[in-house]
């Protein structure tokens, strides 16, 4: 196998990406934290893999508002899928499976989306129009997603530039796929109808890494509202990738941000490889106008073939067909992505569109691995009247599916003569991608006639503006100024404690570093210990921090007191009054120097000095004893200094021995 057209992933530099003209855009989908689903009153956020009933549907393409058919829709029509929806009584009503028209759109969802639209500085629309976005894969039982645009043309600051945000949409989530074999596809409907927003950026990211960074930034903006869902699947992104001379290709539904860079790398590599293949084909005189193909039923010819998949197909009375692609010889093995060759482009189409999902579903004449015997290929070449520079692809299955498969192979081969086809591709675990469907266009949009437009008056926008959080990058800057460590900044800038932290910095003069330790690290440790620290109200935590700033509590004492209160209290919300009560009950006051000296003196007196060979050892022992008693109440440094001073007065003759140890 030849090498990929790009350097290995780890060695690629921004200059390398600039060289191939990489451009990336994002579509970030984020579920909103609402009580109900978007167009019905089913509870949002309830998941269940079990089901009570099933409904079967088929999809047919329909015209767009402008009177056109969408390419994706026509593709899905060819697949002839039986789509089964699983229904659970707790998570769906008759709306989700399209037996009841939509109810009014959820107000809570609109308000959250407005807040986000303001944070992304979009031009807000004054009247929402619900559209139907066609999805003929069956992921939505109606065959379309109800969706609406709240704003266009916004921007985000990124490093020393801005990334433009094309639009923010509010839409209903789709089904979760259970399985897809042959002509049978099954979905769970629990997630269906959950409100989510879609943030679309312009293609203004130029490396895989910065695409991931911008994605993370958008996610942080969303989370900074505290009104979005979290957890696996609550945020998913589509990544749009193109290289110079290539085409916009969408990698759909990437669940984790860290997967983005490698996925982009592989897609970039694929596009560069496909452009290379196009050039070579054109050089050989194969263009969209001159491409020659043929396909024939060759079942009879291969009745004695040894290649197991073909053998088994013939045994099951299935058909085998051969497609001849003139001038394609030697190209099918061209690497496109890591561990992936050009032939997979054909195999993917056959799997998705002809529904021949049992792999391998094709074998080709360039194949270096297990294949037909050379004499079988010879027979096929003769039958197909193939020349040396022609490639052959075999495909097997049900008669009708195999016909579809051959048509698709020819379509894909024709596309190869003009470069990169517009695909929606699915991300695979190894960082490569596979064909999912033809990329849909504006043709799939249709106005929803079931719902009237919704006016967004200025007062409503103002209400959203009043409750929206500070821009997350401003929060980050404040925290950074307060010397908070970066890890804590990233955790806390999107936490519900942002206002508390800012107040503690401003009013109590506490450092960002300390607040990071307390509110990110200690809180997490307490959560891991199942103390449920989220029960602390902001005011309660402020009271604890205040006690520290008044020196009633040492740094170490903050976590100690927090744990103490959490252990003692069974309440679901712990208020500042609860904290003050505990401080009073334990009589936690600032310890004066005099009181501290007294404690130290008592400790020295109580110790059996003969046990220690040096004063240094004695001091270590005394420090341990004192901290046991004073932990949390007095800063360790203060105890150490006081102990040292006092010991000097008690044991002056030994001073030299331990000074500086």
């Amino acid at each position: 196998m030849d090498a990929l057209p790009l350097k290995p992933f780890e060695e690629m530099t921004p200059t390398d990406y600039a060289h191939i003209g990489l451009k990336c855009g994002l579509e970030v989908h984020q579920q909103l934290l609402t009580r109900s689903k978007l167009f019905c009153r089913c509870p949002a956020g309830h998941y269940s893999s079990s089901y009570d009933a099933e409904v079967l549907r088929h999809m047919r393409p329909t015209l767009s508002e402008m009177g056109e058919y969408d390419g994706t829709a026509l593709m899905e029509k060819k697949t002839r899928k039986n789509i089964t929806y699983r229904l659970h009584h707790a998570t769906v009503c008759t709306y989700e499976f399209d037996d009841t028209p939509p109810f009014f759109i959820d107000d809570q969802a609109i308000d959250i989306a407005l807040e986000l639209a303001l944070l992304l500085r979009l031009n807000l629309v004054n009247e929402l129009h619900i559209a139907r976005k066609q999805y003929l894969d069956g992921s939505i039982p109606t065959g379309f997603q109800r969706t609406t645009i709240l704003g266009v043309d916004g921007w985000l600051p990124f490093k020393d530039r801005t990334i433009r945000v094309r639009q923010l949409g509010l839409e209903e989530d789709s089904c979760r796929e259970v399985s897809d074999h042959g002509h049978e596809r099954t979905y769970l409907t629990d997630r269906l109808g959950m409100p989510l927003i879609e943030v679309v950026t312009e293609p203004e990211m130029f490396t895989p890494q910065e695409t991931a960074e911008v994605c993370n930034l958008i996610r942080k903006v969303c989370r900074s509202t505290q009104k979005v869902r979290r957890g696996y699947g609550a945020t998913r992104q589509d990544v749009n990738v193109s290289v110079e001379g290539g085409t916009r290709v969408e990698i759909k539904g990437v669940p984790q941000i860290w997967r983005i860079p490698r996925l982009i790398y592989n897609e970039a590599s694929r596009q560069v490889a496909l452009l290379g293949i196009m050039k070579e084909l054109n050089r050989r005189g194969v263009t969209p106008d001159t491409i020659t193909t043929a396909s024939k039923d060759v079942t009879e010819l291969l009745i004695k073939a040894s290649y197991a998949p073909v053998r088994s197909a013939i045994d099951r009375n299935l058909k085998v067909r051969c497609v001849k692609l003139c001038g394609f010889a030697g190209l099918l093995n061209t690497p496109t992505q890591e561990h992936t060759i050009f032939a997979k482009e054909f195999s993917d189409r056959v799997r998705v569109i002809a529904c021949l999902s049992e792999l391998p579903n094709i074998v080709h004449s360039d194949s270096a691995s297990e294949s037909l015997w050379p004499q079988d290929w010879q027979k096929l070449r003769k039958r197909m009247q193939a020349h040396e520079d022609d490639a052959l692809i075999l495909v097997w299955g049900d008669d009708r599916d195999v016909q579809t498969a051959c048509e698709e192979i020819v379509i894909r081969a024709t596309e190869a003569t003009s470069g990169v086809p517009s695909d929606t591709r699915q991300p695979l675990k190894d960082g490569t991608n596979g064909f999912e469907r033809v990329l849909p266009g504006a043709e799939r949009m249709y106005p929803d006639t079931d719902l009237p437009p919704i006016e967004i008056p200025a007062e409503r926008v103002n209400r959203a503006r009043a409750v929206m959080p500070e821009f997350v990058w401003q929060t980050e800057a404040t925290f950074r100024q307060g010397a908070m460590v970066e890890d804590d900044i990233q955790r806390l800038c999107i936490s519900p404690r942002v206002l508390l932290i800012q107040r503690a910095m401003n009013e109590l003069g506490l450092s960002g570093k300390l607040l990071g330790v307390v509110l990110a690290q200690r809180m997490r440790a307490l959560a891991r210990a199942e103390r449920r620290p989220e029960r602390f109200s902001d005011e309660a935590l402020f009271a604890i921090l205040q006690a520290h700033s008044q020196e009633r509590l040492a740094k170490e004492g903050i976590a100690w007191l927090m744990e103490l209160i959490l252990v003692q209290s069974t309440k679901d919300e712990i208020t500042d009054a609860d904290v003050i009560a505990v401080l009073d009950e334990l009589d936690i006051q600032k310890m004066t120097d005099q009181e501290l000296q007294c404690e130290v003196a008592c400790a020295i007196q109580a110790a059996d000095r003969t046990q220690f060979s040096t004063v240094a050892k004695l001091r270590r022992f005394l420090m341990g004893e004192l901290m046991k008693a004073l932990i949390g109440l007095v800063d360790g440094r203060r105890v150490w200094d006081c102990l040292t001073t006092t010991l000097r007065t008690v044991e002056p003759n030994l001073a030299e021995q331990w000074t500086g140890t």
Partner: protein
Amino acid sequence: MNGKAATKTTDGYRGPGLAVLQRHGVGVWSDVEVQTMGGRFRGIILPRSETADDKHIVLKLNSGYNIGVAAETVKSMTEHGRRAANYKIPEQQFPIDAGKPNVVLFGTGGTIASRLDYRSGAVIPAFSPGELYGSVPELADVCNLRTEKLFGVFSENMGPEQYIALAKRIGQAIEEGVDGIVIGHGTDTMHHTAAVLTFMVQNPPIPIVMVGSQRSSDRPSSDAALNLICAVKTAAESDIAEVVVCMFGPTSDEYCLIHRGTRVRKMHSSYRSTFRTIGDIPLAMIDPQTITLFRDDYKRRRRDRNVHINPAYSDEVTMLYYYPGMKPDVMEAMIEKGYRGIVIAGTGLGHVNKPTYRALQLAMDKGVHVYMTVQTLWGFVGMYVYETGREMMALGVMPLANMLPEVAFVKLSWVLGQTDDREEVKRLMLKSIGDEITEREPYNGYLIYQGAVPEVQEFLKKIKR
């Protein structure tokens, strides 16, 4: 539509919206850049629904999304060109095969074939043979299809005028020699029309199949295609020479049921499986491959053309849905307004309260024909069981056995269109023409299962419904 630069249409815009368009010299289908106080927007101006407010301009963005911009915030609008929608299902000549049966499809309106209407913001009927073939090519496997648009009304606007025209046209089509008739109809009153056609078109030699859809054909998961394929197949291939309704059996996209025109009723406002045979079993189930008959007591297809068209209809018939505490003046008002026939949907076995007797007496005195049906829909009127029933019969109220209230209404309208003779009316009303009254209610004619009951849940888990 296509764009003529000279005339700027402003479909649906009024008031401030219209003023803004005119002020900036733009119109519907203009590709514009709009500067507003809330920022810049670029898109094509779409027509405005007449039921929407007059304060917003609708734009179609490049992405295909539509948005509304408040007219009062618009600072400027610059036209960059024009692009009109051209909503047209690709028309293809319907192939003719001499070996296949000839079916005619009459269009009356409804959602079986529809497209978007900007003015109303809803879907409106659109109907052409080529369009149908373009969107449901499977039809050509079954028959040679001819289509004819008779009316373009939603089903709630169907009435006597349409019933009569339809019955007459059916008669002509039968004489012309078609092998089957399909009638595209809105679903809301499809069962009224199915019943009235059963009475007006008697003894047809061919199937007359009514069909519609619960989800308009502009939706990918519409039931229109399967309904239409099954209806056309029924008309072309079945030997059921009756007026029937062919609509989704379960909500799943699996098969349709063929219901007798007089025993079918729309039972859910939005489900696909809304049409149910009441108090009996359907005639057959059908999918694109097979027709499975459930019974053999139907009238068979014939080669002759001896149909009897009787398009009589009186619009002086009304219905009274009884409710507890009803005062006699409601019915008295009907009588005083000149209604000659009243179908009551009574409670239980067919009852009304005592105060209503006064109105019943008036009806008898004035020669108004009063017939009793049941609100329960399932079951027979039983006026001998309780004293109330016997008293009402003494006041001239005629029980209509298990005739459905809507069927009784159209039948009485049809009968009073022919005669006012009390005995003749009674004879015609009680003589079953198409099973509007049946002799027996089969044990499986009443099936309203309740969810959550274990055996029902088990059924639901196993069977896609």
